[in-house]
């Protein structure tokens, strides 16, 4: 048996199929994975993401600490509540984890890291925080719900007071703030609008049931994976890890190489990669033949070599199979994928595949 979130008993009561996810017993689906996927694209769904690790960083030098720790530059954060997405790299430029960091005050930032990398991340962060005198506080007592979909914000706001709801509905994209004891952020991992809410574990079950009664569907990790892949969002451990760097993981946009005098961990290694030009890249694939792309299938690229699918699935929105693949940098518009010994045709496309309910590739 793995670790359980404060909502575990409710998931069981709701008939979820439970699977191991990074050491946690998590709901993969309640009734139909495709049904849950469409609920988020078309209306609203709620996910238990309490397995994710919330860490508060406090200290007078927390900003310079994060400017050293992260590949993206927290100096882009000028307004309290604003967040950015970043990789945390090791000295060789390998990705230790991807995370969201919120700027709450000049002495308080909050990061949210993946469940499967929790221990490694905490050790790494603590080790580097010492020289900046930054306190590292895990907020394990918080539950986290992701409420996602075109109707998600309006429905979630109904759980707040009139004033609280107005405040929540005014939040800009990638901004979070404390509202009536909850930390409400307009973020997500589905390609739809919505909130991620950190709240006391004791509130979580009541909130979930109220969301259900407002027509917000219970959604599992299965739908979360198809939604994020359609949305062109990487999954740590699949699409990047310590053996890959951001430039070959479709994450160059998250690395702030400017200003040039910012010395962050992994910078020297990335400078070297940049000077040479990355040998591989992460691309989107759309399968043209019938079948389903899956991670680790081999990708054949004419005159350029071979690559590998890092994440693949059937896209419920497009009703075709889509994937991310790491391929030689010279890969053009067309590849073939080896599925059980058959070479099937796939087209190289630029993710995202779907955003705000709309198909972006044909």
């Amino acid at each position: 048996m793995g670790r359980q979130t404060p909502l575990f008993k409710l998931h069981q009561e709701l008939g979820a199929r439970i699977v191991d996810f990074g050491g946690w017993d998590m709901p993969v689906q309640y009734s139909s994975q495709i049904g849950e996927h469409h609920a988020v694209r078309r209306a609203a769904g709620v996910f238990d993401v309490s397995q994710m690790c919330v860490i508060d960083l406090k200290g007078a030098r927390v900003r310079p600490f994060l400017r050293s720790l992260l590949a993206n530059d927290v100096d882009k954060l000028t307004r309290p509540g604003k967040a950015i997405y970043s990789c945390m790299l090791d000295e060789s430029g390998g990705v230790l984890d991807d995370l969201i960091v919120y700027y709450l005050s000049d002495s308080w930032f909050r990061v949210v890291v993946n469940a499967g990398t929790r221990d490694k991340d905490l050790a790494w962060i603590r080790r580097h925080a010492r020289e900046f005198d930054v306190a590292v506080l895990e907020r394990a007592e918080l539950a986290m719900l992701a409420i996602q979909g075109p109707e998600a914000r309006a429905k979630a706001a109904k759980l707040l007071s009139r004033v609280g709801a107005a405040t929540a509905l005014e939040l800009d994209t990638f901004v979070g703030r404390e509202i009536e004891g909850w930390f409400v952020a307009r973020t997500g991992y589905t390609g739809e609008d919505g909130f991620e809410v950190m709240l006391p574990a004791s509130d979580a079950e009541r909130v979930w049931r109220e969301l259900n009664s407002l027509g917000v569907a219970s959604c599992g990790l299965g739908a979360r994976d198809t939604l994020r892949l359609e949305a062109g969002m990487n999954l740590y451990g699949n699409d990047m890890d310590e053996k890959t760097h951001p430039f070959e993981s479709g994450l160059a946009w998250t690395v702030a190489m400017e200003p040039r005098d910012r010395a962050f961990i992994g910078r020297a290694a990335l400078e070297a990669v940049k000077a040479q030009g990355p040998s591989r890249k992460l691309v989107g694939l759309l399968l043209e033949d019938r079948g389903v792309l899956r991670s680790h299938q081999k990708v054949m690229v004419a005159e350029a070599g071979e690559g590998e699918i890092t994440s693949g699935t059937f896209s419920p929105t497009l009703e075709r199979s889509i994937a991310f693949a790491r391929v030689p940098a010279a890969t053009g518009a067309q590849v073939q994928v080896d599925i059980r010994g058959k070479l099937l045709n796939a087209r190289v496309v630029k993710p995202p595949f779907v955003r705000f309910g709309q198909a972006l590739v044909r």
Partner: protein
Amino acid sequence: MSKVPADLKYTKTHEWLRTLPDGSIEIGITDHAQQALGDLVFVEVPEAGRAIKAGEPCAVVESVKAASDVYSPVTGEVTAGNPRLAGEPEVVNTDAYGGGWLMRVRPTPGGAAAALMSPAEYEKLQQEEGH
């Protein structure tokens, strides 16, 4: 609770078998198997004329989550793959024992066959597997 029709035979790898009037055998996956797989999105069935051996993978069923092989319980020649499943793989979810059949096989007389289970034995297997 999954359905286990009384007039079929079963395998421990969750296929069902129905003997048709002409002596050929219709094969599919059980209700239990389709529930475990979840929403099916792709099914690959063998073509008519293909010779298959008992215990050999002969079809593939893929849900959003994962791909699974289907093993032939008998040795023989495929007389038909279910053509409907190319466009409507979800029929395996909604009608596992009817419209969701995967293939029909004319068994080779005296050919090897997998150990088959009665409905009662198959129900017991499901319970033992804890589902």
